[in-house]
């Protein structure tokens, strides 16, 4: 077996030298009643070439966005990832290492995470960010738990219905067994969280209010108005973002007094990958550090006074605090965070702006093209970034079939998530979308 260097002779030599007796003797600790009776029923082992052929076959049974233009977004975004990213994360010193427990030989990972934390702070405007959560959805769930920890006396959390349905579902799962009541805030006719409802319903028992920014419909929420309600009530304000790229263009959550800002980070450096691995960004204000979940890297010096980095403030974490930890998270999405940092470093100030601007430009163009078509209209009259909702009275099934015939995957039908939005489609456009793809899309829709 090519992955196991121990030949029979090696093993025998070790057993003999150790004097432990045979493997069977070692294994007497495993009661014979539960020992292997027959071989595992697995397919016969594949050699490397046959494996690649098998995997290629599976891969080719999927549509993929380099060959098929896609207008799907909704939490996973088809952005272009420069070749540099993958070639650097493949450096085995990064990808075959584990959690940097031994800082003297882990400065690569540690400094990269420290820089990642800084990037997340810069993007969100917050004071401090952790070294990543599993994804945007679980990051929001952790934010809710954290808000509950901070607000010991309040147990209601308001979450906007314009937050990604899977994020909301994840929050429900995480909070189901705990003393937390999740209350859904409706959205209004413009697709924004209903401010009036919030004003009416907020009370002393409201620990936090969570909205998505831009929200699931691509809309830039009225953060200012929300903040003006939560702040006087001393309710925490949580913002979640699925499209981190938007934060390159719109005002950061911090500027609206947000207490905890979470985001999906996939848009930078990580492929859609059929839904994962992605990564959760998690940032907060300094005052909340001790209540924060997840790993943190901090700056320090070595014995010679040289600047270096270590895991720090781990008294919040499970391996020290056990059942009193702020979270049970241990392994996170470190390599995805590295990819995020590399991509965003390549972009830099100018590239980030340019990429966001390109997304906006193409999205606005698409909006205009589609809404000009007979039978299609813009559902919500609010400003959006690179996603938006279109309403049509045509049969969605047929539309999508026709689009596929033109090698286009259309937007997401919203009905299954929002029964009230039957006939609505969420479209997404990125810098990978070509004008010609959009024109084709409009042409096909026009012919439906």
């Amino acid at each position, binding site marked *: 077996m090519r992955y196991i260097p121990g030949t029979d002779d090696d093993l025998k030599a070790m057993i003999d030298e150790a004097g432990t007796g045979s493997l069977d003797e070692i294994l007497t600790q495993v009661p014979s009643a539960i020992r292997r009776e027959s071989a*595992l029923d697995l397919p016969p082992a594949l050699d490397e070439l046959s494996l690649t052929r098998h995997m290629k076959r599976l891969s080719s*049974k999927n549509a993929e966005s*380099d060959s098929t233009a896609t207008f799907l977004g909704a939490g996973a975004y088809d952005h272009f990832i420069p070749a540099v990213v993958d070639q650097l994360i493949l450096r085995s010193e990064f990808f075959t290492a584990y959690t940097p427990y031994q800082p003297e030989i882990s400065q690569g990972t540690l400094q990269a995470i420290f*820089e990642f934390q800084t990037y997340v702070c810069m993007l969100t405007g917050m004071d401090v960010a952790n070294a990543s959560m599993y994804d945007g959805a679980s990051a929001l769930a952790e934010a809710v738990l954290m808000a509950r920890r901070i607000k010991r006396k309040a147990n209601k959390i308001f979450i906007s219905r314009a937050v990604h349905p899977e994020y909301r579902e994840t929050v429900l799962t995480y909070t189901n067994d705990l003393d937390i009541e999740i209350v859904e805030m409706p959205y209004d006719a413009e697709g924004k969280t209903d401010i009036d409802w919030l004003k009416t319903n907020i009370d002393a028992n409201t620990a936090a209010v969570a909205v998505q920014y831009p929200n699931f419909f691509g809309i830039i929420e009225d953060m200012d108005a929300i903040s003006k309600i939560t702040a006087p009530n001393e309710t925490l304000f949580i913002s979640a973002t699925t499209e981190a790229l938007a934060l390159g263009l719109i005002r950061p959550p911090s500027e609206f007094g947000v207490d905890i800002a979470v985001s*999906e980070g996939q848009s930078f450096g990580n492929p859609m990958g059929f839904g994962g691995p992605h990564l959760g960004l998690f940032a907060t204000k300094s005052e909340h550090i001790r209540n924060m979940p997840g790993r943190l890297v901090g700056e320090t010096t070595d014995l010679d006074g040289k600047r270096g980095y270590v895991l720090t403030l781990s008294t919040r974490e499970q391996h020290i605090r056990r059942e009193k930890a702020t979270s049970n998270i241990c392994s996170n999405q470190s390599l995805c965070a590295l990819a995020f940092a590399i991509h965003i470093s390549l972009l830099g100030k100018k590239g980030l702006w340019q990429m966001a601007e390109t997304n906006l430009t193409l999205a606005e163009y698409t909006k205009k093209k589609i809404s000009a078509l007979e039978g299609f209209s813009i559902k919500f009259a609010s400003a959006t970034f690179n996603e938006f909702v279109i309403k049509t009275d045509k049969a969605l099934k047929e539309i999508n079939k026709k689009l596929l015939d033109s090698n286009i995957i259309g937007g997401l039908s919203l009905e299954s998530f929002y029964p009230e939005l039957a006939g609505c489609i969420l479209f997404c456009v990125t810098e990978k979308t070509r004008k010609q793809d959009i024109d084709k899309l409009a042409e096909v829709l026009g012919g439906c």
Partner: protein
Amino acid sequence: MAADQINKILKAAEPVIFERGSQKRVGISLPDHGLENIDARAVIPEGYLRGEIKGFPELSEVDVVRHYTRLSQLNYGVDSGFYPLGSCTMKYNPKINETVARYAGFTNAHPYQPEELSQGNLELMFELQGLLAEISGLPHVTLQPAAGAHGEMTGMMMIRACHEKRGNARSKVLIPDTAHGTNPATSALCGYKVVPVKSNERGVIDPQDIERVMDEEVAAIMLTNPNTLGLFEENIIEIARIVHEKGGLIYCDGANMNALMGIAKPGKMGVDVLHLNLHKTFSTPHGGGGPGSGPVCVSAELAPYLPTPVVRKNNTTYSFDYNLPDSIGKVKGFYGNFGILVRAYAYILSMGDKGLERASRTAVIKANYIKERLKKYYDLPYDRPCMHECVLSDKTQASQGVKTLDIAKRLIDYGFHPPTIYFPLVVHGAIMIEPTETEPKRAIDEFCDAMIAIAKEAESLPDLLKEAPQNVRFRRLDEVKAAREPKLRWEK
């Protein structure tokens, strides 16, 4: 002296990326979209356009490549050498898995693209569910959890849901003192009170202790098998009987499954719920701390509570099943760390039954070999055959004032990654060594030689150990300072 001083300056650290670059550099180029750029101010509502991000770098491609290349050179990975981090199963990560995981149909598939256009991915997930079920002996599997701790949470929520369904959610979870920190943390997250259980003088759980604490309020015992001392919970059958009799369930932390593949199935031991760490047992890369994947395997009784969706096969096609009315719901967006699933699937296909069994058997032999070679030089708290890892302590060296930390740092000088230290907590000054099956005997011997040399140095040159490491680019880092004045982001 002067020379020494100059040399010191030379070993400068890599600057933080925000200290690099210069104005107007860019490391990327985007397609020309052929439209006039929209004026963002015309679209974005007043007061919602962001200003310049202070401190954001401007770099060219070469700046970025150099920076991360050099950072990587400050790191140590499995490909660099022996990495015997106990409980982490730092086995070799097959390179072909990185190649196949990058096929476009895997990386460029959108999670919401139509199922008809995702049949390859669904097939892969369905097949992997089956393979893990077969290896674990537990028939139902969710691939959604993103890591081990996430799997624990998922599993414990399912246990709670099961008890709720039965009529009483119960309030307590039994957790042995050898357990990993994620176990109690998870239990708390699921609203349970933790009842600690001491392990006995053989390093395992005593059924009598369980008998004593087990009652109708105990939802489950959360054990690890083999446990974190590397010892098989030899009373597992008896324990399962006791717990089950009182209506409790058995949760097994499968982080140490690398000891058992093809040797024994948790499903056969009375385990009801088990999580696996694909980034340990199934060879997916650790990535500097993730992404991992923590599928959960459960018995038939627990199946209704699996997170949505699960993948089903209908004749020749595959689909997501969201129709699980008793499901605990979703624990993350989409379907799990799919890219990691691809690698684990490729690994299992490459190994087959014989390969997996051989992996576990080899891992066990190697751990015992190390234990026997080192026990003359280091205290071995539980002197009996172990499974895939062994735990020593610094008791012998303590008289010289040499601690586990010093031994670990000195190992760095010798070119090795240190073992896990100070865990499990039941062993004072623990040194937890897990070689894995992919470690050549030579590397193991070199490691043992180094450990023995260090034991000798501890007697003759204890200061050398306290000053270690000295052979790498950084000396010991001040963790106290880092925690006292937390500096968690770069600032100008």
